């Protein structure tokens, strides 16, 4: 199958076929909560990519907030004595 017809249109990144993109983008779609509900609708490639970027950014922000809270918690608690207990409970989760 000659899928190189789109090559002329792409300047910077070459040898991407439309089919390849759609195929992989549909895989991405399943991962993103926003789009999982609309699984049976056709979501455009750019929308999926946009939502992916948004989702990653929101995950980054969540981790940032959690880091913030954790750093405050760690500063205020005396961790050493409870360390073993906490680790044990983390492993039991």
């Amino acid at each position: 199958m000659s899928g190189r017809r789109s090559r002329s249109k792409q300047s910077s990144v070459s040898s991407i076929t439309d089919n390849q993109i759609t195929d992989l983008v549909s895989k991405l779609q399943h991962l993103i909560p926003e789009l999982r509900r609309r699984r049976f609708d056709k979501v455009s490639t750019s929308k999926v990519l946009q939502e992916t970027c948004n989702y990653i950014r929101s995950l980054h922000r969540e981790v940032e907030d959690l880091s913030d809270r954790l750093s405050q918690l760690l500063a205020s608690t005396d961790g050493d004595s409870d360390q073993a207990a906490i680790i044990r409970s983390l492993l039991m989760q």
Partner: protein
Amino acid sequence: MKRWTTKREHQIYSSKLFQALCRSRRTSSSTSAKELHQTADRVLAITAKGTTRWSRAILAAPLTAGTNMKKHKKAKVTVHTRLRKPVVNREKRKLPVVERKLRALRRLVPGCRKLSCNNLLEETSDYIAALEMQVRAMTAITEFLSRGEAQAPTDRLGSIGNM
């Protein structure tokens, strides 16, 4: 990618992260949120066992106190539009809707700036799954620590299992 959803992986990551945090707390008086975030990312990358590009990129990155993400901000280069043919300009604007998004995505996933579209999407799915686990694990640690504040140490062991 599936491994990020297993309970085992979650346990490994959260306990490793907690140990790393306790260790760093012993060496320096206070851990800033930035450092903590960095530690969390590094432990996450280690948990990936070097199988993905984004994890290798995180581990290869130097430890900085500043912001990692904004490192590559390039100044916008303005071209004299007079010297360019209008056709070329229009093409450039029209062309990269998908390309633009791909570029944005490349900036978000570590180490993937020059990656092909195929591999980029593979890395992205793995990265997203890993990030989700990171959030779950850090939330769990936070909850344990905040519960610990409210209760006496002996109570803590008994209250596990509510998750």
